[in-house]
């Protein structure tokens, strides 16, 4: 998961720097991960790749909605399933690992937990110039978790 999220920065964010933060929260028995960049945002990645512009809309919230629904910015028509990215990671974290997933990109924040799924279009004073992915997973992996269920 970390590899894929970090690769996304390299492949799509158009920046040469990324940031990773990992913490074990002993009290909550959770692992907290943040992967961030100051790149072109997810909206900017769709525009730069000229992908799904017909569905993109005009806001960072719309771009997050596309990303969580599996619309890839990769341009590999013969291997359309390639873009593993955010949507698959979200599924693995929330459905498989019973964790929480959030994405801040530009002017929008996506929140996904077992009980809640929504995208907040943020007020203009909150505008993150890049993308930050925040993940919280229990330190103890659920018994029934099978990595391969989330690999395709």
């Amino acid at each position: 998961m970390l590899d894929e999220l970090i690769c996304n920065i390299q492949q799509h964010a158009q920046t040469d720097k990324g940031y990773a933060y990992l913490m074990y929260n002993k009290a909550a028995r959770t692992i907290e991960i943040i992967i961030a960049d100051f790149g072109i945002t997810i909206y900017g990645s769709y525009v730069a790749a000229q992908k799904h512009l017909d569905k993109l809309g005009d806001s960072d919230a719309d771009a997050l909605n596309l990303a969580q629904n599996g619309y890839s910015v990769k341009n590999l028509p013969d291997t359309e399933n390639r873009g593993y990215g955010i949507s698959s990671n979200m599924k693995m974290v929330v459905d498989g690992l019973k964790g929480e997933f959030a994405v801040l990109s530009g002017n929008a924040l996506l929140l996904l937990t077992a009980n809640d799924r929504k995208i907040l279009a943020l007020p203009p004073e909150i505008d993150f110039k890049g993308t930050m992915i925040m993940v919280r997973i229990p330190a103890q992996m659920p018994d029934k978790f099978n990595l391969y269920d989330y690999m395709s």
Partner: protein
Amino acid sequence: MKQIINIQEQYGAELHTRQMMERLAASLVPTNEYLLDMAGVEQISRSAADELYNLTHSEIHVDLINLEPFVEKMLSAVTKGRFLPRQHTAGDMPIIHCATIGSVQRQLMAK
């Protein structure tokens, strides 16, 4: 004659990045044939496996031998995924327009 490359010796027992596999691909000569000996490679990330799939299906003639069980399973999962159409099953998420910081806070506190 196929040239054998010991991947574990050159890249270690854990293959974790696309870049690592891209470096491997860049080091190969398209006119040659290669056997990538995967013995001792115990771990591979999905993205590294994905790039390895790309390599084995590129114009360079590459075969893999001595796959460890985990690596074999990961490559199998990646290969299977290649033949599935992209699914957009998550559906749209509700977009909530927050005009103020206070409304963002309320949304963050809501369960």
